[in-house]
């Protein structure tokens, strides 16, 4: 499908719904983590919703997406059922990875979602490999390769830029610049903070986009996707965004002030921006958006209920999915 024009009310309402789903889902995850129902490392996407929602709406169902460990939102927008993601977070057998991956390792290749990778930057060459396969098989697909501004200092990112450009791979490298690599503010770790230029030495054109504005994200993404799909080779986009919560659930966030976070929430919140735009434009009324809020809350509540009532994985799962036999069955 081609992306719908960005002035399309139905599309904007859909953006609102999906961003709200991500927000409420992640809030619930944070709550359940606090209750001890979710374990391990857990990285929330709250604040960054416009990036993944605006971009996903610019690609097709048969395109590919790969990202880091901050992956719940990317799975949600690709259409992975919220209940399967939540059950993975609670470590249940009905989770998307049968409870064997957890927060950082979710995959759904049938929906073009290639994970969910725990080592910072490792998904970048993998993503180029997916784009390589798309080109090798002469398909007109693209791959969105998401990584944070922290990962943008990893060497393998530049090894990948070099090959992707050399072989003109249909990859879009998306730097989700949420300003903090764990506790390190961007200015403390980067010689040159204009990350959109990081591909230029390899001939990869880069643009910078307001990643808090879902419409801006979507419009920029449509153009990028069209060009990459047309065979122009890889491109890079730096999404200027912000995460409201800590790097992970165990991060006490001592490296910035509450005031800084509050200012972003008040002035740039992606969901609030869109809500105001919809209401002030007269496209929808408050009641319609409230109905969406109720629907989303219900979906999240059902996912949470499912995730708490589903059975633990069968103990036999410990030793499955390690090796396949020649027929592709568990060996």
């Amino acid at each position, binding site marked *: 499908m081609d992306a719908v024009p960005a002035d399309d009310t139905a599309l904007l309402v859909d953006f609102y719904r999906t961003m709200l789903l991500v927000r409420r889902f992640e809030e619930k995850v944070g709550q359940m983590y606090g209750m001890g129902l979710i374990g391990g490392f857990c990285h929330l996407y709250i604040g960054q919703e416009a990036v993944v929602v605006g971009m996903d709406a610019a690609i097709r169902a048969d395109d590919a997406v790969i990202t880091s460990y901050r992956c719940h939102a990317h799975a949600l927008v690709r259409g992975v059922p919220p209940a399967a993601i939540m059950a993975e977070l609670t470590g249940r057998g009905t989770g998307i990875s049968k409870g064997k991956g957890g927060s950082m390792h979710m995959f759904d*290749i049938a929906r073009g979602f290639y994970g969910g990778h725990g080592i910072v930057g490792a998904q970048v060459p993998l993503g180029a490999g997916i784009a390589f396969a798309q080109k090798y098989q002469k398909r007109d697909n693209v791959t969105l390769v998401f990584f944070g501004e922290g990962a943008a200092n990893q060497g393998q990112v530049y090894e*990948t830029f070099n090959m992707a450009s050399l072989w003109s791979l249909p990859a879009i490298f998306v730097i989700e610049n949420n300003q903090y690599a764990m506790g390190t503010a961007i200015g403390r770790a980067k010689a040159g903070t204009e990350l959109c230029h990081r591909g230029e030495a390899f001939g990869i054109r880069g643009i910078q986009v307001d990643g808090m504005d879902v419409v801006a994200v979507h419009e920029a993404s449509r153009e990028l996707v069209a060009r990459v799909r047309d065979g122009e080779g890889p491109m890079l986009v730096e999404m200027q965004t912000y995460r409201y919560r800590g790097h992970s659930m165990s991060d006490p966030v001592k490296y910035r002030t509450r005031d800084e976070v509050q200012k972003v929430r008040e002035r740039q919140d992606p969901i609030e921006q869109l809500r105001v735009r919809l209401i002030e434009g007269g496209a929808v009324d408050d009641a319609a958006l409230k109905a969406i809020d109720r629907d989303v809350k219900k979906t999240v509540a059902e996912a949470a209920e499912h995730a708490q009532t589903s059975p633990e994985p069968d103990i036999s799962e410990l030793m499955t999915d390690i090796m396949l036999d020649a027929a592709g069955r568990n060996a």
Partner: protein
Amino acid sequence: MVEMTVRQALRDAMAEEMRRDERVFLIGEEVAEYQGAYKVSQGLLEEFGAGRVIDTPITEHGFAGLAIGAAMAGLRPINEFMTFNFAMQAMDQIINSAAKTLYMSGGKVECPIVLRGPNGAAARVAAQHSQDFASWFGHVPGLKVIAPWSATDAKGLLKAAVRDPNPVIFLENEILYGASFDVSDVDVVLEIGKATIERSGRDVTIVGYSITVSRALEAASMLAEDGVEAEVINLRTIRPLDVTTIVASLARTNRLVVVEEGWSFAGVGAEVIAAVCDGGFDHLDAPPARVSAADAPLPYAASLEQAALPRADQIVRAVRDVCYV
């Protein structure tokens, strides 16, 4: 019967698999126009073109990650490392991405890739270019690890590796590339995980893999002159380890020597002996012995290098120890 070098066997195996399956491609440094740093991919560019025989920049972490991603997306990459020493640059992608993703995805993401290249000591290239990684990779659930010795092994196991749905580490040996072997069946596809007996004997079992099979056979010839008949097992596959063949041999000989080119600490020899203690302890008439590399980085000087690597005379001595002769 055809005489063939290991180099030819590897080349033919790749060419045959590329003819059979469009998804198979070769990627690595100098594999295309240079025809392979060790000429293993001779002629492949000409036959299959630059779309399927792909020269990479010097960027092991990057291209291994890219090849692993391509495998996850449905292709069948053969990833050549110019030597496995350089695969250390790509270790994260091999272990964390290739070996673990099937498990972490609950079976959703497969990674059918072959990571191949020369492993172990070459000749006079010193410590950073001379290391046996069999035990490193053998340690990891989710990987198959193959270490061929003969041309038959090379041909039959590489074809099997390309067809395997799992990530396979294929450890070749530079010194063996030029070695000639008689190959009885050029169409052979060997079963991964099965060892073979290269020489039968009743007095002692010598287990080796890759070039140490040559050393074990030399030792067996020397021992035969003194009336000691050694059985030589070529492991062929490190993981999964063919404990059945080893224990069956031990049931006949009751004595065991394991030879490896790697270091002995936490090595393949240690694993073989532990496995034998699990499954064949009652067959042992003497404590098993290991012959391995000296517990030091590999030196450059010819005399020191020779002293560091496992030799036939050391195997003979180890056999005499376990046989009490």
